[in-house]
């Protein structure tokens, strides 16, 4: 989005006055909406909307052979597709760079073993383990993609049910997988320690949380902080063309420490009280 100099000055002044162009304060999020179970034949799915940004996350679990260096753990793999629906610039290969940036951020944030219990995904040590394929589709881009994607991932993982399977060894020691015929027999993942990203965009001398598309066009660098509900930081990365003063960075990290756990608790409480009235995109 291109802004005129006057508009940029307006946004800069609004941030200085702690009253942004949509009336929020610097540390306020926009309205968030979450809905799970949107895709029928997925293990878990969620649709998350922050302001104008909308993402659809789908989790599919597939049985694969675990890596030789980690025979008792499952794995998680992310794939992000920037749909052309969000912006004509994403048509063809236009969205690949942005997608790979967000993907590598997610990979890093989820690389520490305390985030998910990967051993619970193991079915038979050395032979079978579940690989979670988390596919993210960005449907609308209204600023703050990192947050939306990470919250969507958390919601989808909360919604994920993986079938209980048993492994039998045949006569020649070949393993065979038996899937339980009862579809309701499955286990859910513990997503308490799953991190969420918080994006702090530097505009002038202040950092704003949850930037909108206009603010992103006039901001300089952003700091993406992946933080869990217990306040453990799993990933920090600076993106964008600007630099940060150490005190700004410290302020951002302290804000993340204060607000991050609140966002987690809000999300989980909303997911728990979700009713069965699912209308998906028809709403």
């Amino acid at each position, binding site marked *: 989005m291109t802004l005129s100099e006057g508009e940029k000055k307006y946004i800069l002044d609004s941030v200085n006055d702690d009253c942004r162009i949509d009336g929020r304060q610097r540390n306020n999020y926009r309205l968030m909406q979450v809905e799970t179970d949107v895709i029928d034949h997925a293990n878990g799915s969620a649709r998350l909307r922050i302001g104008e940004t909308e993402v659809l996350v789908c989790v599919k679990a597939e049985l694969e052979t675990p890596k030789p260096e980690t025979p008792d753990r499952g794995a998680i793999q992310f794939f992000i597709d920037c749909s052309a629906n969000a912006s004509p610039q994403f048509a063809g290969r236009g969205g690949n760079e942005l997608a790979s940036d967000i993907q590598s951020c997610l990979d*890093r944030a989820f690389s520490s073993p305390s985030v998910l219990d990967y051993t619970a995904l193991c079915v038979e040590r050395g032979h079978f383990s579940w690989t979670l394929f988390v596919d993210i589709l960005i449907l609308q881009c209204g600023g703050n993609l990192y947050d939306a994607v990470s919250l969507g991932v958390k919601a989808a993982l909360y919604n994920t049910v993986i079938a209980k399977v048993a492994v039998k060894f045949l006569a020649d020691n070949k393993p065979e997988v038996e899937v339980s015929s009862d579809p309701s027999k499955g286990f859910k993942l513990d997503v308490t320690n799953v991190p969420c990203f918080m994006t702090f965009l530097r505009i002038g001398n202040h950092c704003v949380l949850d930037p909108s598309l206009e603010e992103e066009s006039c901001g300089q660098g952003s700091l993406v902080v992946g933080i869990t509900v217990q306040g453990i930081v799993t990933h920090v990365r600076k993106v964008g063309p600007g*630099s940060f003063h150490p005190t700004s960075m410290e302020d951002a990290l302290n804000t993340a420490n204060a607000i991050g756990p609140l966002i987690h608790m809000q999300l989980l409480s909303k997911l728990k009280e979700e009713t069965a009235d699912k209308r998906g995109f028809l709403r």
Partner: protein
Amino acid sequence: MAEQLKVEKYWVLVLQEQPSLLVVLKVGVNGKAKGSAYVEAGNTKVITAIYGPREILRRQDFRMKGILYCEVKIANFATQMRAEGNKEAREQELSAVLRHSLEPVVCLHLYPKSQIDVYVHVLEDDGSCLATLITCAGLALCDAAIQTYDLIVGMGLVSFFHLLYCLCESMLDNRYIGGNIYMDPTHDEEKESASSGENGSVIIGLMPSVQQLATIFQYGDVSAQSVTKACKELMSMCQEVTPVLQECLLNACPNSPIAEAEHDDQPDL
């Protein structure tokens, strides 16, 4: 402390406490490229070449600010296991992080409709890869006479236990291993850290004169206060190491009095 030597146009640092560890700096290693640098920190070896600024050929890419194109390639033989892990994803990540680190440093508004290419090759990766390659890219930028806001000077710490000052990195790699901090860890130390308690890695990119963090990259499980504390310590170490890198760059200039005094015809590298 440390002894600086000048050995055949290389800046070599021999550390008294750990004489087997060498840190090597050299700029202008590649005759064909506009600017180049080679950095060795312990066993990690990185070489960078810079081409540009050159014109962007496609008209639709026209913009008033220059574009930085960074490509990091890790040699197949660089890691302990050949072509270890997900090499392509790692290369893409390093390229993206390098680009985000160099963008605040280079005066891109002075290069409209132009592209600056930064090609980094990691010849051997023994830990501190990201830190070393950002330093190397920074040195190469200065060698290429690309205009920057700050002279990216490098400094790094080899090991917190020994409190050694290794004068070659602008990025400091700070690792917590169960409460102990290892500065500039080796590959084995990185692996050990990944399996212990509160463990993580913090890498910063500092522009020392303007006191701005060009980049920060953290992974692992650390508390927010620890990240801040790590950054403060890294920054103070950076400041101490700045002068040596500056001197290394100065001496690489063809008209400097030291270079003229030691004029020799040996080929580069």
